[in-house]
């Protein structure tokens, strides 16, 4: 049937269409940048490619005059460390509480309402409280990332746990499994790949909280640099940093997906 919904692009067209929006944005940027630079060659808002590549060269491949660090890499290292610890702890807590909340009725009765309410509190709105509890150091940043994503992970995993067919749980019990054995042998193996899905979905939020935390009080990090450079509109540095953060987030997502494929191959069997 000749309908738009039935028409599929071939491989070449699909690739072309995929590239198209990127090309349009880049061309539009170049046109607008040229227009501004022709009026004012020092314009900072939409710098040209050579200015941007100079900035990349300076930030990534030359030691900073004041500290001797390669700024892009030292910023990346401190940001990824904070993000890694925060997301790691959140995953652990989310995994444990999510499974218990999804499986154990007494646990659910105690914590379900609590985590639901907790997940509705915007963490950025209670920042001053977090500062007073955790100080202004590394701990506060890690905690903000963690607090930002933990409620989502718990709720997501509790729902997934509750979705396990009840027959499986009954079957295990008729075979004599205790609660502990059911958790370890039936629930955890099925829930680990779901937890990874949850982490993948919450990575965007984790980056948001990380950059917010770094913007507020910090002396290193990708978010710190962007907010510092913003003070004098150094878009030649900010734009590559934004692209780099996007790339890192994309790479992390890809890595988690590959890990999931390798570690939980059974999930992909059959399709």
């Amino acid at each position, binding site marked *: 049937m000749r309908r738009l919904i039935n028409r599929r692009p071939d491989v070449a067209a699909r690739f072309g269409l995929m590239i198209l929006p990127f090309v349009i944005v880049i061309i539009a940027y170049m046109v*607008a940048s040229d227009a501004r630079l022709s009026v004012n*060659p*020092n314009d900072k808002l939409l710098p040209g490619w050579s200015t941007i590549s100079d900035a990349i060269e300076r930030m990534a491949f030359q030691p900073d005059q004041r500290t001797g660090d390669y700024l892009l890499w030292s910023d990346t290292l401190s940001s990824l460390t904070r993000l890694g610890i925060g997301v790691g702890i959140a995953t652990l807590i989310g995994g444990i509480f999510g499974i218990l909340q999804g499986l154990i009725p007494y646990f659910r009765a105690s914590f379900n309402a609590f985590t639901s309410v907790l997940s509705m509190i915007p963490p950025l709105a209670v920042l001053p409280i977090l*500062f007073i509890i955790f100080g202004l150091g590394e701990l506060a940043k890690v905690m903000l990332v963690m607090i930002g994503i933990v409620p989502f992970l718990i709720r997501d995993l509790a729902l997934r746990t509750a979705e396990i067919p009840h027959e499986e749980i009954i079957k295990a019990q008729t075979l004599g499994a205790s609660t502990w054995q059911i958790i370890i042998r039936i629930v955890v193996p099925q829930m680990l790949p779901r937890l990874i899905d949850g982490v993948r979905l919450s990575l965007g939020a984790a980056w948001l909280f990380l950059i917010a935390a770094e913007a507020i009080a910090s*002396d290193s990090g990708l978010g710190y640099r962007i907010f510092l450079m913003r*003070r*004098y*509109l150094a878009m030649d540095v900010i734009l590559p940093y934004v692209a780099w953060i996007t790339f890192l987030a994309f790479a992390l997502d890809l890595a988690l997906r590959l890990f999931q494929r390798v570690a939980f191959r059974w999930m992909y069997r059959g399709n």
Partner: protein
Amino acid sequence: MTSFKLSSLKIFAAAVVAMTLAFTAISPAHAEAKKDFKVAWSIYVGWMPWGYAMDNGIVKKWADKYDINIEVVQFNDYIEAINQYTAGAYDGVMATNMDALAIPSAGGVDSTILLICDYSDGNDVIILKGKEDLADIKGQKVNLVELSVSHYVLARALEKIGMSEKDVTVVNTSDADMIAAWSTPDVTAMTTWNPMAAEILAQDDAYNVFDSSELPGEIQDSLVVNTQTLKDNPAFAKAMTGIWYETMALMSADDEAATAAKTAMGEASGTDLAGYEMQLAATEMFYKPEDYIAFTEGNLSELTTFVTSFLFDHGLLGQDATSPGYIGIELADGTVVGDESNVLLRYTTEYAKMAADGEL
């Protein structure tokens, strides 16, 4: 059935045109004689009169006199206001001389300080927790808004006692969170400005170890306008100058109208008359055009070099800068401090003189 076939080239071309239109909407305004002007300001003790003038018809009165339209727009974020001005969306902005040099001038936007509203005379403070001597700052972490006037005050203070920034660790902290930050145990040293500084100093263990009254005239809170716009539209400059000195005369008088104006300004900045008076005490306002002219024609070249060397040391004059004088600054008498072929910041007393002579 009609075909959906559209040449992909056409779609592509259309998309590029659409995106380009969207992007060119943020192209800089080409300067020429025009009627509508926009000026950005943000909350600060010395700039509150602008908000008052806008709300109470003084702006409209002067704009009407010169047959133009002026909109004085309040920004919640000081830096965003300067960035908007630098990008060309505004014709003028309230900024310190230091930020005017580091953002619009370093960004190639030739700017003129049309008038200086005031200079900080104690509004920027270095605060230590439990210590009373500036030298005790050695080895501490100092929370401040990095690359701001606070950073400048810290650098100048350390210089005065023979130390340098290497003796401390600077931690960039958002100004909105200074008061909350002070109450955490790991914050022991801070540089910030009023009203936050006053709030923090009210606590028992907070000591003012250095403030901007020891740097008289170095931190000038100014009205910065685009030089080209100024050249093409003297009426705009005349109106702005008229607005400012009328509001100054109103608030510096010793009568009920002055009290009412200052109360309104205090409330607009989140405090009351007493709080605003206290901030004014730490601010040297230029109430009369004569005060401004005398200051600007004084030792400005020396004060300017302090600022340019700080900016140069922190890489804020642009990556091409080879010396603190990379950007030339033209003083009111026409002499240039720094590179004469790259003048991007100018002082002028031309319009203040008209105000002094009653010619506006």
